[in-house]
């Protein structure tokens, strides 16, 4: 038992150090303002990994979010996973993961950022695959790693293009250069960044890895797939926003991606029969909200929602872990009626669901409000999105709000109310240990605490509230009406078959091509040396046939040879 706390202590130390570093920065002025040293040279230097640590207020918030959730997850895990034989590697990888996150957020050096980015990807891979005995965990881990890594190539190229364009690999330096010499290559940079964040944040069309990553231990899901790693995509998009802010193409593409993803994710979440998977789709949908804000030209709203979402989604996932701990499954069918047996979990998670649905006064409401406001505001502005696009985006966002409220309510109802399922003994639904409840409470408090000082936009706020209330009401009404809320619309439960290219087409293609290549390598490419050897062997045999010891044949060879040479010589001459 005590050995487990070593890792908690390590994490706490890391969190403390990061906090000491980050907290004073929260009050600095400016949002990624151009401060610090740097300058454009003739060409980009070779990459280096000098840490170049520097925090802006937003980065400081993200760092605090990451280490905070990380520490809570670490504490939570002592109870949740403490008896696992591989707890040690698990806890260490979490710490490594946090270091990677801090590197991404806390540096101005793009290479350090990339290293941290990929270290997070690797840790995510290892943690999803923590239960590597099971086929789902293996498949999910492989898929997550592959998809994100392919997308990361976009970031790699984006960094190269930034370096080429501005002559430095320092973000601040590049910003200074862009302010002096003007922004260039913005479309290229933006699209490449978009590829990277679409992969990392599981946006359409690369969304499918995130739900499949759910075989990972639930605390990890809370940490990686809610609070930090997927959020890093949003963070990066916001961080590099100045480099592509003037490219309508990029912003429109981002808006389209965000619009599709948010609605799709919410709809998928609505029909899930598995709580954890539903929360995963919810994450996808919420991330799309943040991208919508960025696409609308207000990355600050996006990052704000990132922080708030990080908190309440972590709360939800950890709560989900408590439920799983209690009933041994994450299927909604196994839950139900847990309100009484798990009161602490119930209340904290209720707060989480409220924040997800956007109920005042949770932080979820305020940040969602800011996002909607940002979208609304950007309509009609010069540059950025076209007005039509903006309104479509706004419409989609509102519809999504409605669906979000609906599925949040549905999940809440199905998990905590209703009849106890037949198979479950009542005593199984016991409350989780304190080490697990504690983090939930902290996060629940934070869900309210963070709303302090959040702006409120009257018009859109009222509209949003009404829509959310509508969503809640519809579900509650239908529940009252006796519905089991088992909505199994076929195309939606099948997730529109969007997964198929990743799970069957791509592997089948790779397998087919690789089989062909292996065969070709053996029977095709290798033909020329083998043919050469064969020809040499045959010629050798033919030469032996000539060596018959028959003098006359030799004389004939000589005579014919002379004749050939003479004829050739005469022709040449």
């Amino acid at each position, binding site marked *: 038992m005590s050995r487990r706390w070593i890792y908690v202590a390590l994490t706490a130390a890391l969190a403390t150090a990061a906090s000491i570093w980050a907290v004073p920065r929260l009050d600095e002025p400016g949002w990624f303002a151009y401060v610090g040293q740097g300058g454009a040279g003739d060409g980009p230097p070779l990459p280096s990994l000098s840490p170049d640590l520097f925090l802006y207020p937003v980065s400081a918030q993200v760092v605090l979010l990451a280490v905070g959730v990380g520490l809570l997850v670490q504490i939570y895990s002592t109870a949740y996973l403490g008896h696992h034989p591989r707890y040690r590697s698990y806890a260490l990888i979490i710490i490594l993961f946090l270091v990677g996150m801090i590197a991404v957020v806390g540096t101005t050096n793009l290479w350090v950022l990339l290293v941290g980015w990929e270290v997070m990807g690797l840790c995510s891979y290892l943690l999803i695959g923590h239960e590597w005995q099971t086929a789902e965990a293996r498949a999910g881990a492989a898929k997550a790693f592959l998809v994100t890594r392919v997308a990361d190539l976009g970031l790699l190229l984006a960094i190269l293009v930034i370096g080429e364009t501005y002559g430095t690999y320092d973000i601040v330096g590049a910003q200074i250069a862009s302010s002096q010499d003007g922004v260039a290559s913005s479309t290229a940079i933006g699209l490449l960044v978009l590829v990277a964040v679409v992969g990392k944040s599981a946006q359409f069309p690369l969304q499918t890895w995130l739900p499949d990553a759910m075989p990972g231990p639930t605390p990890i899901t809370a940490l990686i797939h809610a609070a930090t790693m997927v959020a890093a995509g949003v963070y990066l998009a916001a961080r590099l926003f100045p480099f592509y802010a003037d490219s309508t193409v990029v912003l429109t593409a981002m808006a389209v991606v965000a619009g599709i993803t948010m609605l799709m994710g919410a709809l998928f979440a609505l029909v899930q029969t598995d709580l954890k998977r539903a929360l995963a789709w919810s994450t996808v949908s919420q991330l799309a909200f943040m991208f919508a804000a960025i696409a609308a030209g207000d990355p600050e709203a996006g990052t704000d929602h990132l922080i708030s979402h990080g908190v309440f989604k972590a709360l939800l996932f950890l709560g989900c872990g408590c439920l799983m701990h209690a009933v041994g499954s994450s299927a909604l069918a196994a839950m139900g009626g847990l309100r009484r047996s798990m009161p602490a979990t119930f209340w904290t998670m209720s707060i989480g669901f409220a924040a997800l649905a956007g109920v005042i006064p949770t932080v979820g409401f305020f940040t969602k409000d800011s996002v909607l406001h940002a979208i609304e505001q950007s309509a009609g502005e010069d540059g950025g999105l076209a007005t039509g696009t903006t309104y479509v985006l706004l419409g989609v966002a509102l519809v999504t709000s409605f669906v979000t409220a609906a599925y949040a309510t549905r999940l809440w109802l199905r998990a905590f109310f209703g009849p106890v399922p037949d198979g479950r003994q009542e005593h199984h639904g016991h409350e989780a240990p304190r080490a697990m409840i504690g983090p939930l409470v902290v996060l629940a408090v934070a869900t309210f605490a963070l709303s302090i000082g959040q702006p409120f936009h009257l018009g859109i706020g009222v509209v949003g509230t009404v829509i959310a209330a509508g969503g809640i009401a519809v579900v509650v009404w239908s529940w009252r009406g006796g519905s089991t809320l088992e909505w199994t619309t076929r195309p939606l439960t099948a997730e529109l078959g969007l997964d198929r290219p990743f799970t069957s087409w791509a592997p089948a293609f790779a397998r087919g091509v690789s089989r062909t290549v292996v065969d070709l390598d053996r029977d095709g490419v290798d033909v020329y040396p083998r043919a050469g050897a064969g020809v*040499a*062997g045959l*010629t*050798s*045999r033919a*030469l*032996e046939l*000539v*060596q018959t*010891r028959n*003098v006359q*044949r*030799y*004389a004939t*060879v*000589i*005579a*014919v*040879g*002379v004749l*050939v*040479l*003479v004829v*050739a*010589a*005469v022709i*040449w*001459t």
Partner: protein
Amino acid sequence: MNIPIDWSLVAPAVIVMVGALVALLVDAFYPRRTWLGSGLPSTGALVVAGVLAHVHRDDIGRLSFALVAIILVGSLFVVVASNIMNFETAMPPGEFHFLLMSAAAGAVLMVVARDLVTLVISLELLSLPSIALVGLRQGDKVAIRSAWTFFLASVVSTAITLMGISLLYGVTGSLDYVEIREALASPEVPQSVVAVAVVLTLVGLLFKLGAVPFHVWIPDTYVGTSVMVAGFLSAVSKAAALGALLILVNVAFPYAYGTWQPLLAVVAAVTMTIGNIGALRQSDAIGLLAWSSIAQAGFLIAPSVALLTTEGLTAPVQYLAVYALANLVAFAALSVVLRLRGSTRIDELKGMVRTDPWMGIPLVFAALTLAGFPPAVIGLVTKYVVIRPVVDSDHVWLAVVMGVNVMLGLAYYLRLVVTLCDQPDGEPYVSPSPPVSVRIAKTTVLLGTAGLIALSAWPDLLLRHLP
């Protein structure tokens, strides 16, 4: 008519010839026909001839002197190493040494010849004793058959060469190299006849070199005769033919380069390729070396495409020196193997480096030299040397063919080398305390290897001083 004779040129050949006669006479009048009895005068004559040649080296010319030196050293090597045969009653020592020395005299004469009459005579002086040498072992059916093969192929090509010479005479009106060159310089000579004449004239020399398609006699002859005679044919006889070819073409045919340059290039390319491919399937070390010597002939001929430059003349001679030494070492070592083990099949050589390092390592080193592979640096350097003039005369394709043939050659040299280094099968062969003759042969092998190693360590030794 007073014909002037340049004695300084002819002296080495005459001394060698005298040595041949003395060897024969000693053998005839000394009742116990021992190997040493006729061998010692031969050795002495070769040494004296060498000294004489060195004294007159300025008259002879650097190139010819280098060739004479190679021939004399090679003959000396063969004479000394041939002691290995002293136990063979079927091998009459007097005749052996007489024929060997006569052939050597012919070889020396060939490279100092400056007119076609001398060339023809010296060629025959080399050929006829060689043929007799091949068939000398009495009662040996294989040997006599080989001699017959060699004889017929030889006389046919001699006849063709003579035909070429007669045509050349008909075109130029002279048999003197320099006069031929001057006559060919005139644009009035019928070019096609000149082409035919040049080609036919070169046939005899290419035949002696073993170039394709005149190589057919080589495998049968080398395998059929005694090992050291094969060594003599592969080293000394080729040296003489190559020297004669270089000098003849360089002095007499410079204006007919349009004929011989493509001819030699193609012949070289085909020769090295056929030779290497032929060697691939040999199971007998002698047969392997026979085919390899065909391939090496290709490498010897190749740089002659640049014969009219200094480097085109010196490169083949430098290659020849190393090739001859390595080949003689290999043949001498194999003659020892044959004497001790009764077979030269490659399988028999398995593990020799471990069981008999003093014979195994020289064989390995010789094979690596022939392959042109480090640690036998000299083999590699001489390969470089012969490729240089080829490239310099814009025959890059030929250079590439040479490169590919280095690879082909390695395929079988490697087989020889790894068999030698391999784990021996069964009981290691323990030779009874070897007789003096074997020790002498072994000593020559080791001396030759020492020479190769010295050259590998310091290639300048060769490249600077020869020719």
